[in-house]
Each structure stands twice: as structure tokens, then as C-alpha cells.
């Protein structure tokens, strides 16, 4: 068996790290993305930078015990249609992902041994680990991967993975039929019969129709777990997986109990048992449960409760800076947002630093209206956006709105900070003649109109790369393009950025994209959230993950 050839860019990347041209984090992220194993990437980075990795510094972890975590316990019969980041908390302990993005925002192979992208990033060869077996004893093989990926990409299953990978693995097909409202019925199919190709028992090749840098990150999208094909996509107590735990009991909206599975191929498990406890979505109840020791940790704690818990001697505070955000997006199909001058006026009337402070205070960082976070390895630093009310008024006048505009901003009832952010923005807009009425709607109602409302505020979860959100939300005709933004120049720049593995070169291209977003883009964006939680100090090995993931096989309890 021949060793897979290193990606052409790896030697350059190593030299850049040695010369201090890329950060340690950028190096780790890009090197692993280009197929270098995490162990090799960390070893090289440790050697060059002289900073030892945290993993090596960890003490041996104690074994045994039960860990109780407060979270919403959803039904997880069908992980493929999981729609929140709380869903995988339960099933990802049993069924696993091909890759894994750690709390450090670096994506590594997981059920894969390695991956190997072609230089043009259109062919991805995925090498499966040799030592992974299903709980039934059968080895984990390429057929399992092909079955799972093909299933996730079918219309019938209804997974959000389809929207994520549509651009590079699928074609849209007009069935020629219309529904009862006269709308065309569109279906999807793999763009090529060999798009997901089994090479041998331990190798799968993805042949893409367009270059894509973020394939490993997409394989960690929360519904994309590898299910046991013999169970036909249904998950539940006793379901077979490759993970460190097995699900013993699931009482939806009450609790889920998992027990350790001996002989796990990876690290751990150290715990005997995990119990996820649902205290009904009431944030105060979660805090009460933590205070009285009913749970050892929480999925997340709202910053509002930080003062109540910060001095509790039994609890340890955890936080992580993320690219989790909400954007006020303008839909270009509606006036006045079809005019770029109006969109820019909406941004110029805002002081992002002040809006961020009002919304979250110390638990967030200001955003810059372009949906690329400073923690993204492809972020480019631009001059901070400044508030300019006079210029905003002038732009509105140039666009034909000299008396200002009246608009309605639709926001969800939850999370509550949306209303704080919306109030801050509407007050600032007033000075520029933008009169916005806030319309608070129940969450399900918002998801009915999120693609069509003229002006809305939408949550966007953390994604490890800047290009990922841009491709999902702003590329012309993208599945989740809620603003109907269609800009050929943006699409061209994004295509180019997605084909550049070099973080320096890509961030130079990202600077152009970010500037275009600030000039003509469809959003007003003022903050990036930090996620916070508290765990009992006896819990060892926890780190707050930017998408709330908890890797229970790595956790232990001190007696």
C-alpha cells in the first residue's frame, strides 16, 4: 500500500509557520484540512513554535461514575433531520462523524484515518480507519459511508445536509410538474453517478462538480453521523453505532441514559454512564438544577445568569469565542432593499460597537457587517466600520427616500437577546430617518417567513470557515440565501476563495469579499456571541465547543 501523496501546498504552509507568516491555529486547521494527520500537524507545530499541545499535558483521567448534563432531550429517531445543535448531544455519543471539529475550531479525521484533496479541490479521497467496528462486531467499511452520504442527499430523507452540499454534489432537476399552488416541483440528484464512489473497502472518493475547501467541515455537520445501514436510518435505544456509548433509555423531553461500551476504538470512555436531563427549556430551571447539584453541567447558560453562578465554589466557568451570530438581513426582492445605497445607509446608521455592548456586553465581540469572524482562519482585517448618520441620510436621499423609510423588522421571540439587539438598531436608525417597527413573532412563525420577509433577524450558527456561511447564505440561488442576494462579482470572488487552500492568499481574497459585503451586501451585523456554560469542578476534560458539542468519551469525574 502506498502512502498518499502530500498536498502540493503543505511544504509551503510548513515554511510559512516556521517563518511566522501564519498563526499556529491557521497552520493546524489548514494542514489537517489538506490531509496531514492531526498528530503530525500538532507535532510539527509544537516543534516549530515551542508550545506544547494541551492534549499532551493532560493527566490520566479517573474512571467510573455518572455524568448528568442538562439539555433539551429531543426525539432522535432520525438524526438525518436533526434541526438543532442539541439533537446530536445524545446520538453523537453512539453514532459518529467521519470528521471532528474540536473546541479549538480545527477539523480532524475521526472515523477517517485521513483525507486527501486533489490540488484543484474537486476530488476528495477519504481513507477510513482500519480499527473501527460497529457494536455488532462488523467492520466499518466504505459501503457504510456511501450508503449514509447518498441517503443524506436524497430529497425523501429531508436532511439539511442536502442544502449544505447541494452546490458541489447535486443537480436540481425540474420534474416538469407543478404543485397545487402552481409552483414548479424540483428534485435533486447526484450531479454524476460516480459523485460518491467506493474505491475499495476502506476508501471512498468524492468527485465534486465544483471546488470545495470545506468538505471535512461539512462532514461534521450535525445530522451527518454514520448510521448502521441495516437499521435503515432509524436510531433509538439499543441502536448500533461505532461510538463509546450505547443508548439505554430515551424519554423525549425528560431524559436519556447512555452506558459505556467496552472496547471503543478511540479515547475513553472514562464514564460508566451519562444522563441527559431535560428541565423543560426554562433557563432559570437549568440554573436551579446546577445550584442544587441535580446536574453536573449544562448545554449552555445564558449570559444573564452569569452573575448568579460566577461565585459558586462548586462550579467551573467555561466560555468559547464563536462565529455564532444573528444578522439583520434585507431581502432584495422587496423595496427599498433592492437599492444598494439603502442597504449601505442601514449599515452606516449603526454603531456596531455600541449595539454589541447593548446586546451582550462582555459576552460578545463587535461584528463588521460581512459575516466573517475574526476567529475564522480566512478573516481579513478591514478598517472598523464607523457610524455616519449624515452619509446614511444622503444615501437614502440619493436612492429617492429623502424623507426616510418605514420598515418592519421581524424577529423571533427567542432567544431574548434578539429583542435587545433589534431595539438598539431601531433606536440608532431613527436618527437617519429609518423608522423601523419591531415585530416579534413565535419562533415557528419566523421560520415560515425567514426566506421571504423584507427585513428579518436570523440566527446563524458557528461554522469553522468564513467561506462556509458566505456560500450558504449569500451565493446566488444558494439553498439558504434568505436575502435573495445575487451578485456575480461576489459569486466569482467566493468561487476563487473556495479554491484557495493558502490562508494568506484566501484572506486577501476575503478582504475583497468583505469590502463588497460592507458596500453592497444584504446584512447589518453587529455581534459575534461567546457561548458560556458552567460545569461541576469534579468534571474533567470538558471544553466549551463553538457548536455546543460535548465529546463524552473524553470526560471523566473526579471522586
Amino acid at each position: 500500500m502506498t502512502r498518499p501523496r502530500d498536498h502540493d501546498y503543505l511544504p509551503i504552509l510548513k515554511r510559512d509557520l516556521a517563518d511566522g507568516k501564519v498563526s499556529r491555529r491557521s497552520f493546524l486547521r489548514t494542514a489537517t484540512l489538506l490531509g496531514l494527520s492531526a498528530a503530525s500537524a500538532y507535532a510539527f507545530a509544537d516543534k516549530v513554535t515551542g508550545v506544547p499541545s494541551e492534549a499532551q499535558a493532560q493527566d490520566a483521567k479517573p474512571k467510573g461514575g455518572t455524568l448528568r448534563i442538562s439539555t433539551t432531550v429531543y426525539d432522535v429517531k432520525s438524526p438525518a433531520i436533526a434541526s438543532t445543535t442539541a439533537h446530536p448531544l445524545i446520538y453523537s455519543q453512539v453514532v459518529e462523524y467521519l470528521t471532528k471539529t474540536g473546541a479549538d475550531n480545527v477539523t480532524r479525521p475521526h472515523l477517517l484515518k485521513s483525507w486527501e484533496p486533489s490540488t484543484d479541490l474537486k476530488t476528495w479521497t477519504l481513507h477510513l480507519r482500519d480499527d473501527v467496528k460497529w457494536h455488532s462486531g462488523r467492520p466499518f467499511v466504505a459501503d457504510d459511508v456511501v450508503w449514509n452520504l447518498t441517503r443524506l442527499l436524497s430529497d425523501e430523507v429531508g436532511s439539511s445536509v442536502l442544502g449544505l452540499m447541494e452546490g458541489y454534489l447535486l443537480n436540481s432537476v425540474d420534474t416538469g410538474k407543478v404543485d397545487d399552488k402552481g409552483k414548479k416541483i424540483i428534485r435533486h440528484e447526484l450531479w454524476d453517478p460516480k459523485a460518491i464512489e467506493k474505491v475499495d473497502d476502506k476508501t471512498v472518493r468524492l468527485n465534486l462538480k465544483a471546488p470545495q475547501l470545506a468538505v471535512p467541515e461539512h462532514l461534521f455537520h450535525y445530522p451527518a453521523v454514520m448510521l448502521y445501514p441495516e437499521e435503515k436510518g432509524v436510531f433509538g435505544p439499543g441502536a448500533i453505532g461505532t461510538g463509546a456509548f450505547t443508548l439505554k433509555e430515551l424519554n423525549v423531553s425528560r431524559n436519556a441514559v447512555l452506558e459505556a461500551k467496552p472496547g471503543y476504538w478511540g479515547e475513553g470512555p472514562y464514564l460508566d454512564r451519562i444522563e441527559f436531563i431535560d428541565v423543560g427549556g426554562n433557563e432559570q430551571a437549568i440554573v436551579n438544577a446546577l445550584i442544587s447539584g441535580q446536574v453536573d453541567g449544562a448545554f449552555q447558560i445564558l449570559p444573564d445568569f452569569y452573575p448568579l453562578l460566577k461565585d459558586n465554589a462548586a462550579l467551573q466557568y467555561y466560555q468559547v469565542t464563536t462565529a455564532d451570530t444573528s444578522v439583520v438581513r434585507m431581502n432584495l426582492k422587496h423595496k427599498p432593499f433592492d437599492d444598494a445605497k439603502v442597504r449601505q445607509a442601514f449599515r452606516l446608521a449603526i454603531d456596531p460597537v455600541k449595539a454589541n455592548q447593548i446586546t451582550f456586553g462582555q459576552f460578545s465581540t463587535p461584528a463588521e457587517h460581512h459575516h466573517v469572524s475574526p476567529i475564522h482562519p480566512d478573516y481579513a482585517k478591514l478598517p472598523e466600520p464607523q457610524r455616519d448618520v449624515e452619509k446614511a441620510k444622503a444615501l437614502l436621499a440619493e436612492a429617492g427616500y429623502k424623507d426616510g423609510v418605514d420598515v418592519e423588522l421581524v424577529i423571533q421571540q427567542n432567544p431574548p437577546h434578539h429583542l435587545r439587539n433589534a431595539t438598539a438598531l431601531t433606536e440608532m436608525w431613527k436618527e437617519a430617518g429609518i423608522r423601523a417597527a419591531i415585530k416579534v413573532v413565535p419562533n415557528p412563525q419566523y421560520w415560515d417567513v425567514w426566506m421571504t420577509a423584507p427585513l428579518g433577524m436570523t440566527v446563524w450558527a458557528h461554522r469553522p470557515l468564513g467561506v462556509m456561511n458566505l456560500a450558504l447564505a449569500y451565493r446566488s440561488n444558494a439553498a439558504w440565501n434568505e436575502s435573495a442576494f445575487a451578485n456575480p462579482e461576489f459569486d466569482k470572488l467566493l468561487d476563487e476563495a473556495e479554491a484557495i487552500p493558502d490562508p494568506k492568499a484566501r484572506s486577501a481574497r476575503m478582504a475583497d469579499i468583505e469590502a463588497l459585503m460592507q458596500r453592497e451586501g444584504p446584512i447589518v451585523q453587529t455581534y459575534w456571541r461567546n457561548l458560556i456554560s458552567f460545569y461541576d469542578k469534579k468534571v474533567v476534560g470538558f471544553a466549551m465547543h463553538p457548536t455546543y458539542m460535548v465529546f463524552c468519551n473524553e470526560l471523566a469525574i473526579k471522586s
Partner: protein
Amino acid sequence: MIRFLLRRIGQFIITFLAASFLLFAVTEFSPGTVASKILGPYAVSSQVDLLTEKLHLGDPLLLRYLRWLGIVAGVVENPLGDPAIGLGLSDPRGNRYVGNFGYSLMLKEPVVDVVGERIGYTALLTLLAILVIIPVSLAAGVAAGVNPGRPIDRVLSMGAVILTSLPEFVVAVALLLVGVVWLGLLPGTSPMTQGGRWPLSLQLVLPVGVLVIASASYVLRIVRASVADTMRKPYVRTALLKGLKRRDIILHHVLRNAMIPPITVILLQINWLLTGVVVVESIFAYPGVGSLLLQAALFGDIYLVQALTLLALLVAVGTQLIGDLCYLALDPKIKLG
């Protein structure tokens, strides 16, 4: 009596049908389609359209209502449970049985199972609360009512007014502060799960405590007013003038006549405790019907909201019927007409 009961059952069926149709029509205007709720916000429109087509959700309202009624009556199969749809929903009773209220869209479980488990916990909470509320409120109410204007009446009445005026969440926070934060003697939530540091009995203390405070003080005031009013009746004065002992007058003449208004209020309290304890159950994360109704309403879980609303209707009609029978037992002059 049998005619009375049959008439009541007939009235209930008509009310049930009218309420269920109204509910069905109202949910037409609730946000989100059934298909989009099942698949979540990030499903693309082709996926939602396909599921809508499979579930016949594009049919007219009346047709869908009749189909739903057929599913409840066990005449029509529930399409959501069809394995061909691939949602993984299954009901051990099959897809066709009497009382099939479908699947909860939020919990992806048969509604009958979800409600069945929750009603058990709510019944437990109600029973424990009522076991405290009735003796406490009756004893205190009678003590105040037979001593109008005396210090014992003033103290009990003033205390009851203060406690009645406190919202449940205020009482809950106060008890949490004392029992959990200051003393550390009680758990902060009551998820009714075993295996942790707190036994189930201690998990019940705070929710029962709040319900007792909220409800007993109100019932006490009604009992006090009714007893005080009865004490002024001519037959009580006659009994006193005849030289009967005060204790015998209260036990044999006052209590029986004074109980009709409190029974109405107690039955209304049972009605509320069984289907409307939303605040207390939410604050303490108690897995009862009230917190479930709140979650279902916020999610827009149509089938679950329908089942819970019809359950509330059943409880309301049932307690009303029990009330009528109690009046009859207490006062033979009352006729069931």
C-alpha cells in the same frame, strides 16, 4: 339520574365536536406547516413539498378535519406512521385504533403515550396538593367564619388575602431562595428522575408547596365567607335559642349548608390543577400536562395542543358533573333538570 347522565354525555359529544373543529380551524392560522415543523427550518422547499404531498396536507380543511376525526375514531390509518414516509414514527398500537390522536410533531411520539405519561405526574401533583388544600382551607376557613371579627378571623383572613394576591412565580422564587439557595435542603427543580442526589419525595415539596399556598388561601376565603354567611341564617339563630351546643350547630347545621360554594371552588381548583398549572410546572421543570401544553403551544405542535385542549374540556365537563352530583347530595331540594 340515568337520563341526566345520558343527556350530559350527549352534550359532551356535541361540545367535543364543536371544540375540535374550532381547534382544527384555528390551527390553520398557526405558523408553520406540519411538514416544515417535522423537517425543521433548514430543509429546502423541495423536501418540504415532497412530505406535504405524501401526507395530503394540501387537501381542503374540511377533508383534513374529517380525516383527523376518522383517525381519532380508529376508522382511518394515520399516514404519519407509514414506514414508507421514512420518518421513523411508530406506534405499538398500530396506525388505526380508537383514540389515536396522532403523533406529537415536537416529540415524535404517539400523543396518547406523551399525554398518558404526563397526566400521571400531574395527577400525582394534584392529589398531593388537594390532600393538603382541602383540610387546611376547610379548617382555617371554618375557624375564621365561626369567629367573625375576632383576632383569629382577622389574622387568617389577612394572611389569606396577602397569599392570594401573590402570583405563583413570586411564591415559587421565594421558596426557591429559602429552600434551595439559603438552606440547601431541597432540589431546585423537579424533573422526577431518580438516581441523583435528591429522592422523588423531596422533588415534590416545592411544587406542592407553591400550589397549596396559591390555592388554599383562596379556598379558605370562600369557606370563611360561606360559613360566616350561614352563621347569620335564622335556623342557626333558632338552634342557638333552642340551647343546642355551638359545636353541634356548626357540625350538623352550618357546615353542610355552607359547603356548596366551596365545593364549586374546590372542583374548579381540581380543574385548574389537572390542566392549567403551567407556571409552577415550568418553573420547577415538573413533567406534567401544564409544562407540556406550554412547550406544545410555543412549538406549534398542533396534534398535541388539540389533544391537551380536548383533555381540558373533558376534565371541565367531568368536574362540573361531579359538582352537580355533590350539590344533590348536600341539598335534596336541588333537582337535576
